[in-house]
């Protein structure tokens, strides 16, 4: 793995190696706007910023992520690819939004207030989860009020972008989209398809 990743190190700002010489060894390449994590059973790219442009030619997803993926597949002893997952979190900050009014407003818009108030009077948080399972594919969409940076921490940790921390007290709405497929040969075009679908879901939800 080290020989494969070594040529990519000059592109990165930093390299971290955890649990070296161990089955749980994880190598992290740190770039300015994204990180790439490599372990024995997965390769992950984690990015925060504007999504438009990621499906363009030579974007960071194609180069270096899928380039590194291709080189890992060529290594001796590599087994096979089983599946791929694209998980995206959207946050829509709403200026002037108040935490107390957000949840009530969301319930009123999307759920039946009578039913909810019978169960929990004035809930402090709420979320809608939609899931669709078909053969070899699962799509999960969750959306609800965004009540602070804790909502992101619960899912995937703090974002890299320090400007996001400035929005700690600005509330709004949040969507999480996960698309999971069993695919033995994911490519950059697979990611482009996932991204188009994800952005489509976001546009549909926030047009409601």
């Amino acid at each position, binding site marked *: 793995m080290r020989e494969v990743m*070594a*040529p*990519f190190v*000059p*592109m990165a*700002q930093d390299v971290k190696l955890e649990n070296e010489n161990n089955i749980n060894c994880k190598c992290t390449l740190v*770039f*300015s*706007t994204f990180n790439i994590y490599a372990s024995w059973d997965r390769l992950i790219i984690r990015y925060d*910023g*504007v999504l438009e*442009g990621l499906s*363009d*030619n*030579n*974007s*960071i997803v*194609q*180069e*270096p992520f899928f*380039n590194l993926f291709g*080189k890992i597949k060529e290594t001796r002893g590599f087994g096979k690819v089983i599946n791929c997952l694209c998980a995206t979190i959207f946050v829509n900050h709403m200026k002037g939004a108040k935490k107390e009014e957000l949840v009530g407003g969301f319930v009123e818009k999307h759920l039946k207030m009578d039913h909810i108030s019978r169960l929990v009077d004035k809930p402090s948080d709420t979320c809608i989860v939609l899931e669709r399972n078909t053969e070899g594919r699962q799509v999960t969409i969750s959306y609800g009020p965004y009540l602070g940076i804790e909502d992101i921490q619960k899912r995937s940790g703090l974002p890299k*972008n*320090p*400007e996001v921390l400035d929005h700690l007290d600005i509330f709004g709405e949040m969507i999480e989209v996960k698309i999971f497929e069993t695919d033995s040969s994911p490519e*950059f*075009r697979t990611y482009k398809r996932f991204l188009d679908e994800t952005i489509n879901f976001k546009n549909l939800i926030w047009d409601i």
Partner: protein
Amino acid sequence: MGYIIDDLKLKDYSLPETDSPELDRVSNSEVDLEKENEEPTEDLIASTEIGRDYPNFNYMEELIKTRGFINNEGWEKTININSRILHRGDKKVICECLIDKENKRFERMSFPSNIFSHLDKSIKNPYVMLSISSKPGSTRIDVLKGDGLVDIEAFKLKDKWEKLEGDNFNQPHDKPIEL
């Protein structure tokens, strides 16, 4: 090695000459041309925190001193292009760039030669990875050695296709085709 163009407002200081006239023209667009022949005033010297000793002023050295700031540049978009150097001149380098990896489309682009000066000149047509970052008002080009990074097979395939170019395929048959 990287070359950074930023939207600093440059007055007419005695900047050292560079080998990159094109990029100089871009950065000089910010120069206040009306005051081109003015001597820097005391206020102007005092107002900037970098580079006061104008005859010995080294812009790049001063820029490196502020490296901490450069690390948090907040680039909005980054693209990484597989490239091969075709021609190296004194002022420009022409690269063949793989702009569409899936459809194997190439484009020739030229860049200032000084950003390639760290590469070994003895290697003919070396492969490089061009990392181009951008945000409103600024761009940065990093030239990385392509060993282990660049998809060399894509360039070899292109060379093979180019060798097939010729008139032979267009010549009419002068005898019947034998089945």
